[in-house]
């Protein structure tokens, strides 16, 4: 790709050929305002907000459409450009309802941000605003407010180019136009809420997040979605230890810039029927009593204990389980259980729903421990250590006759019948790494603290006999000392894993 020399606001820069002016300016972190332009979508150039002045061209050119040519001289803050931006904003505001106090998008709305940066003038429009249909459910998970819409067609292009199901379109013309589906059928698409994300204003908003919390009170943490083994990169938006929503996070290797609705709404599982303490045969008992009971069994009769793992755990926990099987219990085979699979839709969803199944496979292969799915109860010994248990129902009768020691995040059906059940923290309450279907290793950070301790802590108690036990202190130590050499990433440290993940 040949380099091109251009000048923006008097500053020279060499940029790859063929990119548009907005991207070139972004390299000099000059912000050119835009509504309809989106990096991953086609160029519509209908909002005209990104007009810039280019030397010896008579009129202002849209920065999103104009490709950079050699020796081009661009001005982004001259008088003409400023007047154009103010005029565009004034036109957009003419029919815009005075909704900021009741609009979910307030705080992250392009109109608000750009008004303060680029417009700052009062409107000269005195007539009546055009009335349109407000806040109706265009689909089961999305609400559309026609008055707020600025017809930038980002949602239309998203459905057409990314999801390849052209479902949305503009009905009527001029300032009467609004977005709708053909024949007003419900907009029921597994990726529908993404349109609410990329909508620059509050026209399309998510039904589930409606009036829940104000956006500027949330703090965002980088993490991964636990819906399936694609491990899409997400932002966990939380406020005093409650998660309110998942947002997609830009990640070229995994999910580019969007996530599926099912994964996005799975944030609810974080706070619904969680196991919060330890149970013995279904009734409450303090955690230390339960862990000491388990440790007695492991130290007392290591030979009669077998391990069943559900791969919905972090790499670090799986590694420690492997060490437990190999060094303490002397097992050579570990059994795993799977959850209900779902169809692989070719865009994002992966058929295996245990989010770290591929990490489990890689680590077990690297530690050369045989692993196989749990078929009959013959293979099992008297006691079973069960880690993480959101699993299919038919496993339950296989495990029925065994003494079960369960570590689980949720209170699913299996908890009451287990001899001992101990609550562990979900991946949003601890740090760790996972590997997804395409072999990308990603790190997730701790968003909230849910009260339960991470599984790594309990495993460290069980492995207290080993000499390098002090290295099992935290996920970071485990990764740096054991996992990165094991997976052949020796030069990458835990903190060094980039936000878009590392190919393993």
């Amino acid at each position, binding site marked *: 790709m040949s380099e091109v020399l251009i000048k923006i606001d008097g500053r020279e820069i060499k940029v790859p050929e063929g990119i548009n002016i907005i991207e070139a300016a972004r390299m000099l972190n000059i912000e050119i305002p835009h509504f309809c332009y989106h990096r991953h979508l086609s160029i519509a150039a209908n909002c005209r907000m990104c007009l810039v002045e280019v030397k010896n061209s008579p009129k202002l050119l849209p920065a999103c459409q104009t490709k950079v040519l050699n020796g081009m001289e661009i001005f982004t803050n001259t008088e003409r450009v400023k007047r154009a931006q103010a005029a565009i904003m004034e036109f957009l*505001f003419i029919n815009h309802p*005075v909704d*900021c106090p009741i609009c979910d998008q307030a705080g992250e709305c392009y109109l*608000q*941000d750009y008004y*303060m940066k680029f*417009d*700052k003038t*009062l409107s000269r429009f005195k007539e009546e605003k055009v009335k349109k249909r407000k806040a109706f459910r265009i689909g089961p998970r999305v609400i559309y407010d026609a008055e707020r819409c600025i017809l930038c067609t980002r949602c239309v292009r998203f459905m057409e180019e990314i999801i390849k199901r052209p479902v949305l379109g503009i009905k009527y013309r001029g300032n009467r136009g609004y977005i709708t589906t053909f024949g007003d059928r419900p907009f029921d698409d597994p990726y529908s809420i993404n349109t609410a994300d990329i909508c620059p204003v509050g026209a399309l908003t998510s039904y589930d997040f409606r009036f829940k919390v104000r956006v*500027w009170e949330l703090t965002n943490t980088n993490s991964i979605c636990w819906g399936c083994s694609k491990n899409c990169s997400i932002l966990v938006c939380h406020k005093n230890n409650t998660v309110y929503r998942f947002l997609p996070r830009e990640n070229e290797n995994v999910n580019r810039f969007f996530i599926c609705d099912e994964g996005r709404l799975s944030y609810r599982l974080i706070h619904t029927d969680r196991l919060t303490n330890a149970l013995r045969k279904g009734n409450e008992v303090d955690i230390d009593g339960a862990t000491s009971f388990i440790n007695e069994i492991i130290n007392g009769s290591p030979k009669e204990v077998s391990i069943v793992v559900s791969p919905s755990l972090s790499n670090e926990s799986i590694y420690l389980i492997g060490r437990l099987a190999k060094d303490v219990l002397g097992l050579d085979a570990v059994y795993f259980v799977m959850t209900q699979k779902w169809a692989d839709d070719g865009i994002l969803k992966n058929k295996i729903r245990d989010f770290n199944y591929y990490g489990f496979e890689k680590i077990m292969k690297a530690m050369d421990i045989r692993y196989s799915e749990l078929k009959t109860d013959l293979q099992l010994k008297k006691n079973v250590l069960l880690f993480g248990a959101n699993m299919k129902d038919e496993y339950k009768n296989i495990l029925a006759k065994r003494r079960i020691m369960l570590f689980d995040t949720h209170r699913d059906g299996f908890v009451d019948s287990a001899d001992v059940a101990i609550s562990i923290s979900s991946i949003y309450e601890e740090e760790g790494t996972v590997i997804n279907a395409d072999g990308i290793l990603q790190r997730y950070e701790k968003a909230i603290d849910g009260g339960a301790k991470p599984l790594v802590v309990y495993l460290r108690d069980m492995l207290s006999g080993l000499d390098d036990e002090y290295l099992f202190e935290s996920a970071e130590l485990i990764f740096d000392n054991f996992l990165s050499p094991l997976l052949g990433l020796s030069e990458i440290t835990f903190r060094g894993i980039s936000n878009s993940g590392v190919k393993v």
Partner: protein
Amino acid sequence: MSDLNERVQEITVNMGPSHPAMHGTIRLLITLVGEKVVRCDTQIGYLHRAFEKMSEANKWQAIFPYTDRLNYVSPLMNNVGYAQAVEKLIGIDIPERTKYIRVLLCELSRIADHLTCIAAASMELGAFTVFLYCMEGRDLIWDRIEELTGARVTPAYIRIGGLARDLPEGFLDRTLSILPRIEKVIGDVDALLTENPIFIERMRGTGVISQADAIEIGFTGPCLRSTGIKHDLRKKSPYLVYDRLEFDIPVGSNGDNYDRYMVRMEEMRQSIRIIRQVVRDMPGGKISIDNTMYILPPKEVVYNTIEGVVNHFKLIIDGIQVPAGEVYDATEAANGELGFYLVSDGGGKPVKCRVRSPSFALMQGLEKMVVGGSLADIIPTFGSINMIGGECDR
């Protein structure tokens, strides 16, 4: 006489925070030999309410209620001081009418502050009648402030770049009408105290501080002027419209309590003179700048147009975007130089909002003024410094 003192060994007396004369927030560990004070360890901080930490957590325009409660006897002076510092940091010039209104409110608050100081000091010396007269005088002023701002003690009326609202109808005439009654109150207090032998006995010659000590310790305001140094920020580095007004600076001679009392009485008369001039040439016009990036747009614009509500919303959520930089701006508050040192990194919240409060420096000098005197002299000395807990401990 001297051997009597030798036989009397030192005792340490605790004049604790909850003492009637200690305004509730100061603790003095006084070491006495008989009645003579030998050492006085002043302990402050009993009203430390973390003003700086709160100001770092709030937006620029949301700090006004906290500045009210620094020197809560003359709250409007803190507002004006803080607003002036932020305006200097941003580089805003406020309209003429706002300057005149701010000077008017500052002088009214100065009179209220001095009345409270004289009321408290004289009550502690037993002159309860003077306390009641001064309360009546102060209530007259507070009625005007309440009528204009809506609150008596915590107005929060000043905004960055202007004021919250304009003067109501007839406000200036009512202000003029209370001036003679305040002058009458000052006259009564003057008659009661100035030639009163007991008062002169207690105040003359006690709590003396020399000019050199006063300057070095950081005295400013009436306590510094009482030692004979003619220093007033309104004259030295004029701000607002003080350069267009004629008033003179009362100066004491030997820096004792009596001089401080006389300086305060004279300053109240000068303030009344200033108020008369301000009311006389108060110009018309706008009271706020019209750049809505720093001041909230008017209500009718906010409720009817989308641009107004967007502007209002972003100012409240993200705060006023003050350009990066730092500034130190000092104004002449009732007790002395009230300085604001503001540091901004270009965001909506200050990186640092430091208040240089006059009481803090004055209290440093309390030990020098008290040592050598008798125990009973501590009360008038502390009273005449007029230490305000909120301002001293922040």
